[in-house]
Each structure stands twice: as C-alpha cells, then as structure tokens.
C-alpha cells in the first residue's frame, strides 16, 4: 500500500480530531471577521466564534448553500483581498448565475497535495503517464488533476475533453497508464476504440480515476471489464476545492475524505438534522484549511453515508459511500424518488444491455409518466418482434421492482442517445411544474 503523505493520511483519530478542532476554530474566526455574509448569518443564529469549543459545536453553525454563493456573486464570500487570490474558477451557470470560487497560493498548494494523495491512492506514481481528459478551463476538473499529477512527477498529457479519436491515438502512442475523465466518457471512449479496431490489450492503460458525476457499482464493473483496467472513484466539488476531496483506495470500499482539511457530516435533506454515521443522507462539508474561500457546512446535495471504521488500507480518514445521486438529479415520479444511477444499475444487470440510457419524465393528465430509453445492441437484437417485446417486458419488470414505480421501456437504435464528453445528461423532465 503506498501513500503520498502517510503521516496525515493515517493519522490516529485523536490527533486528527485535535488538528480538526484547531483548524475549525481558526476558520470560524476568520469567516466571522472577514466575510460580512457569514457574520450576519452567525449573528442571526446567535453564535460567536468562541462558542465553537468542540467538533460537535460545528452543528450550531448555519448551513451554506449554492444560493449563498450566488447571492454573493462574484467575490462576496472571499475571506482574502483579491491581491492574495491567485486563481478563480467558476461553474457554467446553466441553472442560474454561475458560482465563483477563489484560491490563494496556499489553497492551490493544498489542492495539489490532495490530488497527489488521490492519484497515489489509485496507484499512480512518477512513472505513470496520466492522460487528463477532464475539461481544462473554468471547470476545476482539468487543472485540479493536472497540478496533482505534476506534484507526483508523473508525465501529464493535458488532453482535456473532446476529440475522442485523437484521445485514443494519444493513449496508444504515448503509452497512457492512467486515464482521468467522467465515467460516461470512459465508456464512450471504449465505443470509439471498437470502431477504430483498437483493443484494450493494445494499450498500456492500467487504471482510470473517474468522477464529476454519480456512477453505480455496476458501471464500475462494466468499465473495468471493457477497458481491462481498475476504475477508481474520485469525489470533489468546486465550492469545496475541486477534485480530490475524497478518493477510493485499492479496497474500493468507499472514498476517503481528506479529513485534515474537510469536516464531513450527513444530514437529513428535509429536516436538516445531523444523522448518525452509517445513515444515508446529504453530505455537508466544512473546509478547515482554505484561505480564499472558506466554506462552513456546505450543502453538497450529494446523497451518501459515512463509515468511520478504519479501512484495511491503513488510512484513518472517514469513508463516504459512492454517491448514490444528487438530490437535484433526483426525479420524483408519482411521489417516488428515482435516481438515474438506480436505472443504470438495473440495466447493467441485464446481459447485453448497454449503460446508455435516458429518462424522460412527462405528465399525462395528472399522472407522471416515466419513459426509459434503452439502446438495442446487436447482442440483444432479434428479427422477431415477440423477442424484442419480451426483452422490453423484462427490463420493465426489473425496473419496477428496483425503482418502485413503473416505467415504459422504449427500445431505441444504438448510438442514438447523445454521448457526452463531460457530465452525461440522463434526465429530460418535460413536466411543467
């Protein structure tokens, strides 16, 4: 088992908690002093920085949401003057005003350290050739991974997203050993490889570090089988720092959250109550070392659970379960919560079904209708209508038992569902609600 920073990653719990408390106190003091929006919220809640005496006191602090970032657009939540900010990233803003995040020199260093830990955890070394197919630019994925890969002195190919045939050519010619991109893009690359007549055995690829969208355990199996690699899940979000907030180790039994820099809680997304370890709910993260944009109790909207049991890898940092879905990706159909990842899991359990799918939600009269479009692969195709209808019925039955809501299955032509080079679009909601 190799670590990037064994002392920090395997720090005894007690020591770790002392460090966390010290950093938390300092962070709370700084936001209260330098960020008017935090002072206002804390005053309203009747909390002073000196009220934070133990880690449990974190629960007294108000939450921060994406809306807070928007309300303070662009730099209102920064705790440092712009002269100290060396980098700005931003979300695309497709669902409203973009959210803006800033980094000090030290923030960038910490981020690079975290990414170095993450890449090492996934088995990368200075001998690795890392092809980074996350988009470079305002999105944190590209540059975040890039800095970490340079930190461990691997050879980085900054291929960014897109131009899939060229990606594969680079992979083959430069001997890429690790690929970083979204899991859906990795599968799309495999399709294009097949079109190009390139087999996984023609490549040196040994691992992929995939993130930026929720993906199921079945999807992992699919990717590992098709590309003949180890697939690791990486977690992060720009509001916190970017990729590298949490990473799987070789055991692939949850993602270790870098607890010397972040505090994690699980809450009930509706009642906002903090839940016990092991319960499923929304992940809330507090940054305790960030300078430019410290964030207190950020509501990630990602649904997961926490496991504090010490991992076989020796790391003491808490593990979060693979993200089940985002509370904003979730569609409520006739009162039942449905996540695209659940649909994906069902499909991948049916032999021959490709994990390319689209959920279309509509409302007929007063009733929600869920249609799942599934691509018919050559393996599934039959010249007999009866057999195809049977296939549709099997998928519908499996879907109903897993989702608890019935779905109409529509078989569509292969490659007719749009492929994504970034985050895959899985749901089209046509209801006007």
């Amino acid at each position: 088992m190799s670590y990037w920073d064994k002392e920090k990653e395997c720090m005894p719990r007690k020591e770790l908690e002392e460090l966390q408390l010290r950093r938390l106190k300092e962070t709370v003091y700084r936001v209260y002093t330098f960020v008017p929006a935090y002072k206002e919220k804390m005053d309203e809640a009747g909390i002073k920085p000196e009220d934070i005496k133990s880690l449990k006191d974190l629960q007294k602090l108000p939450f921060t949401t994406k809306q807070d970032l928007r309300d303070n657009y662009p730099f209102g939540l920064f705790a440092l003057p712009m002269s100290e900010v060396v980098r700005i990233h931003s979300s695309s803003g497709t669902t409203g005003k973009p959210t803006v995040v800033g980094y000090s020199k030290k923030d960038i260093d910490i981020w690079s350290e975290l990414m170095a830990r993450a890449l090492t955890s996934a088995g990368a070394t200075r001998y690795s050739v890392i092809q980074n197919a996350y988009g470079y630019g305002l999105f944190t994925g590209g540059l975040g991974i890039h800095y970490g890969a340079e930190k461990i002195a691997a050879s980085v190919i900054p291929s960014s997203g897109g131009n899939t045939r060229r990606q594969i050519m680079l992979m083959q010619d430069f001997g890429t050993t690790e690929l970083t991109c979204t899991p859906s893009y990795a599968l799309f690359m495999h399709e294009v490889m097949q079109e190009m007549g390139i087999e996984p055995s023609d490549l040196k690829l040994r691992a992929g570090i995939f993130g930026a969208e929720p993906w199921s355990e079945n999807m992992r199996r699919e990717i590992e089988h098709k590309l003949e690699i180890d697939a690791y899940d990486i977690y992060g979000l720009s509001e916190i720092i970017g990729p590298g907030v949490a990473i799987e180790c070789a055991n692939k039994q949850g993602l270790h959250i870098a607890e010397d820099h972040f505090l994690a809680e699980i809450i009930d997304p509706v009642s906002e109550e903090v839940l016990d370890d092991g319960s499923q709910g929304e992940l809330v993260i507090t940054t305790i070392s960030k300078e430019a944009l410290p964030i207190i109790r950020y509501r990630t909207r990602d649904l997961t659970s926490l496991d504090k049991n010490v991992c076989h890898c020796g790391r003491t940092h808490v593990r979060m379960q693979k993200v089940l879905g985002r509370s904003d990706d979730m569609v409520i159909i006739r009162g039942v919560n449905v996540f695209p990842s659940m649909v994906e899991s069902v499909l991948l359990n049916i032999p021959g079904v490709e994990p390319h799918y689209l959920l279309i939600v509509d409302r007929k009269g007063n009733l929600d209708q869920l249609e799942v479009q599934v691509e018919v692969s050559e393996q599934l195709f039959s010249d007999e209508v009866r057999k195809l209808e049977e296939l549709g019925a099997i998928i519908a039955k499996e879907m109903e038992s897993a989702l608890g809501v019935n779905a109409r299955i529509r078989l569509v032509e292969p490659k007719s569902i749009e492929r994504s080079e970034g985050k895959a679009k899985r749901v089209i909601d046509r209801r006007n609600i």
Partner: protein
Amino acid sequence: MAKQISVFLENKAGRLSHVTRVLGDAGINIRALSIADTSDFGILRIIVNDPARAYRILKDANFTVSETEVIAVQVSDSPGGLAAVLEQMSEANLNIEYLYAFLGTSENDALVVFKVEDMDKTCITFKEKGIKFIDEKQLYEL
C-alpha cells in the same frame, strides 16, 4: 436456405428512407422486403443480392443488424397455392415465426419467405413432400 438481413428501426420519420438510401448508394438491390412494426419500433426484413456486404454496410452506418436464416419457397400463383404448402407444414408440426410473399419472375409462381422454428426439420419435410424451395444463389439473382 437463404440469408435475410434484419434491421432494427426506431419508429421515427426518415429511418426507413435512410436505410434504403444507404443500401441504394452501395449498389445493393432489395429483392424482397417486409416490415414488422409495433408502436415503438419496427423490424425491417430484406432479401438482397449480396447479404454479406449489405450486413457490413449497414453495420458501418451504425444500424443494429442481424443475419437470419430463412427459407424461400416457390408457391403456385393460383387460388389455394399457399394453403397447400401451409397445410403440409401444419401436418408436419412445423412452427412458423413469420412469413412474407413476393412475386417471382416466372408468371405462374409466387415466392414465399418463411422464418421457421426448426430450419432443418422444415428442409427435410419440404424435400419429402416435394415442395420446391429456392437455393440461395438463385434467390439473390432473381
């Protein structure tokens, strides 16, 4: 026995014209055609002059394609012609998955393409009963 090309088609405007255009541009001639349709999708079944090439071309154009073994039978183009053949098949307990007919080149005969459950048994029965079936080569060159 003969090779039929089956193509999965979404029930969407322009799909059938696309598949026929792809074949036409490649110089593939369609000898016989049938479409099975449901509300969501259709299955196009065709007999062409060069099934192996048609299969490749359609696959390259990203269609879902399969090759299916079918049997083409010459049936007298007169009242009761098809009934006579079907009765003999029924007597021999042969299950038909589907069939479609087209006109042959000879004035007195029609051609019927059968997809059956048990191809070998069907061939033997046809031979025994003296039902004329058309060999592959003959069919493609019609």
